């Protein structure tokens, strides 16, 4: 009975842990994918040109659904309360970007009809019919990345900010946000109440370093960008450190837009003259200035395969298409050979994060595995004492002619049946708990005030969970084996006992 309970509990715990960790990983991966699409072609910093041609070529392929040009860079953001933070900036063409990624769904400020799963009280202000029109406007703003300037009436290009960036959105226990107005510290030691709601009247200052045509940073450029909406991807790192800005805005800021350019080329008329580079001090051949048109550039093209397309197949196809593209623009875009390693699936891009969580899962499982290993000893101890208690009876059975393997088999069968019953109930309980884990958790929170998974700390609103049949089967089988193993040693021991001694046992 005791042994059965031990097995049951171990089986249930392992199954629950594994499922929750697995679900955690899956949710994380899914979130990681949301803003990336399937395959990315990345040429960092300087970017590459003629991307429109590349996109055309990509979209012509039947394996590829859509592609979108983006620029990924870093800059400084000045927030309404005066803080300046490092931020990852993504310049996107919002319509094509929404096609390739789940961007549109991550938009937070929009009217909703049903409360989110944890919002039992319906506290979410997005539910409020009174604000419906306002949120509809914000949603439209987010999807067009524009906002009307309330003073001038002009429609301006606007950014979409990660919801955790400003700190002006208070994350509630039910997993949603409530905008609030904090105080801002003033230089004279006083404070000033900030009364902004970012998608309504907030804006941020964005400072980035423009690059020259060789990729070297030149002057910093600063622009004020109104905020059209805020997004929540589900990855905290992304949501607290990312801003989306219209692609043309960022291209201009980075000077990656189409422009006439001045380029230094080797002066072939005077091949033997040299000059000293004013920046590095190096001596090189004399260069001359040439004026031409520099096409617009992007650092990244994101690609989405058609539904059901194999990720690897899409990547291979993208690589092929890039090769053709590079052939067509030889010398003007990065070589196909260099680019092969820059064409990555979203899994490659998120590899470090994914492998970190995978490792964590492995570690937790390992620890629980050790804990469960003690179950073997528990079962062993329980069986040992049972076998000792039954020494005399075993002696009787031996005297009646029962063989050593016969007796051992009796115990092992007993162990196996305990293992089976324990594992079955353990699996059922574990399965049930995982399926209802959020309900159970809520109930625990209500009844005992015990909240383990606080959405204010953990970024996922719900405790993610998934029960894999294969996992359940593995845990189940291991549970039974545990019992058999625990029963086997006492079984062999008691069966091998000298029957005469066993009969004398008191």
């Amino acid at each position, binding site marked *: 009975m005791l042994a059965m309970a031990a097995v049951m509990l171990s089986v249930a715990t392992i199954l629950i842990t594994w499922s929750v960790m697995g679900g955690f990983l899956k949710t994380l991966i899914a979130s990681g994918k949301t803003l990336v699409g399937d395959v990315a072609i990345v040429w960092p910093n300087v970017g590459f040109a003629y991307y429109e041609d590349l996109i055309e070529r990509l979209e012509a392929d039947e394996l590829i659904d859509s592609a979108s040009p983006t620029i990924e860079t870093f800059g400084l953001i000045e927030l309404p309360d005066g803080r300046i933070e490092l931020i990852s900036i993504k310049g996107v063409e919002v319509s094509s970007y929404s096609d390739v990624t789940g961007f549109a769904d991550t938009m937070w400020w929009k009217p909703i009809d049903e409360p989110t799963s944890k919002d039992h009280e319906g506290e979410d202000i997005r539910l409020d019919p009174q604000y419906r029109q306002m949120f509809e406007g914000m949603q439209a703003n987010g999807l067009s990345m524009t906002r009307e300037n309330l003073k001038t009436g002009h429609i301006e290009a606007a950014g979409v900010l990660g919801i955790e960036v400003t700190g002006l959105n208070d994350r509630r226990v039910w997993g949603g946000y409530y905008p609030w107005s904090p105080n801002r510290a003033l230089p004279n030691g006083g404070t000033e109440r900030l009364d902004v709601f970012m998608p309504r009247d907030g804006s941020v200052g964005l400072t980035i370093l423009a690059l020259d045509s060789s990729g070297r940073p030149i002057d910093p450029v600063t622009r004020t960008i109104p905020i059209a909406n805020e997004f929540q991807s589900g990855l905290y790192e992304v949501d607290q450190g990312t801003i989306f800005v219209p692609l043309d805005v960022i291209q201009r800021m980075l000077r990656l837009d189409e422009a006439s350019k001045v380029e230094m080329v080797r002066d072939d008329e005077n091949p033997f003259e040299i000059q000293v580079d004013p920046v590095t001090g190096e001596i090189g051949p004399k260069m001359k200035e040439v004026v031409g048109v520099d096409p617009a550039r992007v650092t990244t093209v994101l690609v989405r395969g058609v539904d059901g397309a194999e990720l690897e197949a899409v990547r291979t196809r993208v690589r092929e298409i890039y090769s053709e593209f590079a052939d067509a623009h030889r010398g003007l875009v990065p070589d196909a050979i260099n680019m092969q390693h820059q064409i990555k699936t979203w899994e490659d891009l998120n590899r470090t994060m994914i492998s970190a969580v995978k490792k964590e899962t492995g570690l937790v499982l390992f620890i629980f595995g050790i804990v469960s290993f003690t179950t073997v000893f528990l079962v062993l101890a329980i069986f040992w004492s049972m076998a000792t208690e039954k020494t*005399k009876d075993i002696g*009787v*059975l031996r005297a*009646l*002619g*029962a*063989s*050593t393997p016969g007796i051992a088999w009796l115990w092992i069968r007993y162990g196996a049946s305990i293992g089976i019953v324990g594992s079955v109930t353990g699996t059922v309980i574990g399965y049930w708990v995982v399926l209802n884990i959020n309900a159970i958790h809520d109930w625990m929170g209500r009844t005992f005030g015990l909240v383990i998974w606080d959405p204010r700390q953990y970024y996922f609103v719900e405790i993610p969970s998934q029960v894999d049949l294969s996992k359940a089967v593995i845990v189940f089988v291991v549970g039974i084996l545990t019992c058999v193993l625990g029963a086997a040693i006492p079984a062999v021991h008691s069966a091998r006992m000298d029957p*005469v001694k066993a009969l004398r046992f008191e």
Partner: protein
Amino acid sequence: MERMVQEREAGATVRSEPILSVRNVHKTYNLGRVKVPVLHGVDLDVAQGEWVTILGASGSGKSTLLHLIGGLDRPDKHTNEPASMRFCNRELTRESKRSLDRYRADDVGFVFQFYHLLPELSVLENVTVGGMIKHGRLGYRTRCKEIVDRASGLLDRFGLSHRLRHRPAELSGGERQRVAIARALINEPNLLLADEPTGNLDLRTGESILDAIIEHRRDAGLTLVMVTHDERIAAKSDRVIQLVDGRVEEA
């Protein structure tokens, strides 16, 4: 080999060829470093159908000898002359553990000095368990009815038909001993080894149990080796031997 079987009781089917022939059996127990010699060269022949009673002081090794005959234990090996225990035409000292298991299950019935019933089983199950061991789990299933019938028949003869579902703990000592005897007889053994079957019982109960055994012996042609302290019981048997100083002395 000279036989000295005296056919005392005519009713029994006593024949002269020995079913069991024990020669030069030594047994020494090791208690840590102390050696406890119990048997020093026991010689004993038992004829088919014979009833032999073993007398001896307490601690003289009667139970030990029964255990050896019953294949529960083995005689010492390291003596000058090797021990021999022949049963029918088998040399038990040379048999494997496995075939000794079979020997106990098929040929021997054991009645222990202290009943040794299984407390978790009912009276009926305590008897049928012998059949289960003999035939194996599968074999038992096919013969289940036959064995249960036999078991309840035996228990009926021993006056326990109304007790079949009871646990041993609910029975009196005499009733328990009768259950133990029924268990020993369930597989129709050739040889019944009974270690003081009446030792813990009052005279009348003892007699009734003895009668049950005697009756069964007559019907089944059973060979019986019995240990007892009771001279009156000994007097009823075909032959009495005495264990003295680890050897057999004919009374």
